[in-house]
């Protein structure tokens, strides 16, 4: 029987000619990732293991991004623990204040992940790198510790769902609308334990940034990973960012999919996910008019340069509504600098928004934009669970940067096509 993209990558890394869904395998890892929340737990675990050193100092990435610059003493202690571990083990890819960014924007930008890789990360949105044609998935801290110690991880080979992408998107439609539409269609457990494989002629209209956004939210449908085929757009990105060799895996003609869906980009309207699940999607038409107190534009989902460009184009020469706190967070230092050079930062500040140094911050209710009881935020992040951004009685609406920027101007959820 034929294999999917994911199955081929896993087979190659397990040293097997073929694998099938449900099989338990042990695969070699190209990269093991952790952040300032999950790494301290992993470091504690690896200390209990009978190993003297990590499996490969270049194949571990430790990114301080959730609570940095440290918001309090405890988070400072966490970063200190990771920093000391990175120093002691001479970890090449340790990223701290000044050279960091949100992990899932930073790793592709630094060229640390390329097509054909197998990556685990102690962060659920590790699935982001599927945009590059890699197999990457989120695990817990103990798995991360085992990965750092042995360079291997166990996987159950996933079955796959095929998403056939067709048509050309209209103006103001981005990767965020595509993935919110899909999650609305299949539900937050619609891809549980499975890989989401995107293909079809419509992919040529989706930029790398769009694809990162889509793969990023595969986990919000319960998926083990999301993966895109490698085309000229992917190759151009990898050549620009990485010196590493990449390997392209294509699905077999007779690969098996447990379900198939078609997404026609030309039919999509901007989507908004209502509280408290990413599957509670409505078109912006239906969402219009909901009053908001805060806007967040950023995160590993939508804090890339094109996201900031879209927001800046909408906010250019305008001002955010009174009492709507608008927080813009470039995902990496490089994006921050480019946004500054292109004048986006000036546009945001003149429009009455604030711009922060890269951080996860408000995305997980950490700091920098925590909500009070009864407050509502429209956000370009990926989760709107109860209490995700602050008080349990606050609400988060998920949308694209275009919808978020348009809503900042009016103070109510708005359609960017009408601004």
């Amino acid at each position, binding site marked *: 029987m034929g294999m999917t993209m994911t199955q081929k990558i896993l087979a190659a890394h397990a040293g097997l000619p073929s694998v099938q869904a449900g099989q338990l395998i042990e695969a070699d890892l190209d990269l093991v990732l952790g952040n300032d929340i999950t790494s301290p737990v992993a470091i504690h675990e690896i200390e209990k293991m009978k190993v003297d050193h990590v499996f490969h100092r270049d194949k571990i990435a430790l990114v301080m991004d959730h609570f940095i610059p440290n918001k309090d003493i405890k988070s400072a202690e*966490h970063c200190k623990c990771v920093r000391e571990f990175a120093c002691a083990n001479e970890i090449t890819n340790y990223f701290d204040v000044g050279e960091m960014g949100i992990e899932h924007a930073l790793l592709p930008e630094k060229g640390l992940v390329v097509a054909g890789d197998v990556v685990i990360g102690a962060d659920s949105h590790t699935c982001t790198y599927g945009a590059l044609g890699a197999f990457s998935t989120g695990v817990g*801290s103990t798995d991360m510790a085992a990965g750092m110690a042995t360079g291997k991880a166990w996987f159950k080979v996933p079955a796959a769902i095929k998403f056939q992408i067709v048509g050309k998107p209209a103006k103001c439609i981005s990767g965020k609308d595509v993935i919110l539409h899909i999650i609305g269609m299949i539900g937050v457990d619609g891809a549980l334990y499975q890989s989401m494989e995107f293909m079809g002629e419509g992919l040529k209209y989706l930029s790398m940034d769009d694809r990162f956004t889509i793969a990023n939210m595969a986990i919000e449908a319960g998926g083990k990973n999301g993966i895109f085929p490698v085309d000229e757009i992917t190759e151009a990105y990898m050549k620009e960012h990485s010196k590493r060799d990449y390997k392209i895996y294509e699905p077999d003609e007779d690969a098996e999919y447990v379900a198939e869906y078609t997404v026609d980009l030309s039919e999509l309207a901007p989507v908004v996910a209502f509280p408290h699940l990413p599957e509670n999607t409505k078109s912006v038409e239906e969402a219009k008019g909901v009053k908001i107190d805060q806007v967040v534009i950023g995160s590993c989902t939508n804090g890339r340069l094109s996201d900031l460009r879209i927001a800046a184009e909408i906010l250019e020469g305008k001002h955010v509504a009174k009492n709507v706190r608008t927080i813009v967070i470039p995902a990496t230092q490089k994006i921050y600098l480019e946004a500054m050079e292109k004048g986006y930062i000036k546009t945001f500040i003149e429009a009455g928004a604030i711009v922060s140094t890269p951080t996860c911050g408000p995305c997980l209710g950490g700091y920098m934009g925590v909500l009070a009881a009864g407050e509502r935020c429209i956000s370009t992040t990926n*989760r709107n669970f109860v209490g995700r951004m602050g008080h349990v009685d606050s609400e988060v609406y998920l949308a694209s940067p275009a919808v978020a920027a348009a809503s900042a101007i009016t103070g109510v959820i708005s359609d960017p096509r009408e601004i």
Partner: protein
Amino acid sequence: MQSAIGKVYKFGDNVDTDVIIPARYLNSSDPKELAQHCMEDIDAEFVHKVQKGDIIVANKNFGCGSSREHAPIAIKAAGVSCVIAETFARIFYRNAINIGLPIIECPEAVSGIKEGDEVEVDFDSGIITNKTTGASYQGQPFPEFMQKIIDCGGLVNYINAK
């Protein structure tokens, strides 16, 4: 024979890791501290009610959301002996096994068990018995490989034993 026995607390669909242990407490990784806030955003009274050995029963996709291992750690440290659900989100499933929190999938048991029932779970056979009603259910036992990790007391010991 390994088993769990306790009073049941029931939860619905898609109980996510943000309500199991809110991110505002993730500046700690101390199990005792995490346990004090377990389930806080879905049931603020939970930690005051739960007794050692009690069991959580939930509908589908339990533990969805972030990869934080702090979630199963908080549940285990709060004294919960087992979580029974229709399905688990995959990272939570992996994490629970890796840290040694027993979990078991069984949709029939979930629909047959009510809040407050007394339930016994036999991990070797996967049999779940509702002592309040007398009904019993066959839960999904672990694949052999996962059973080995559990028998070793978690992934760390499993690797050390290899």
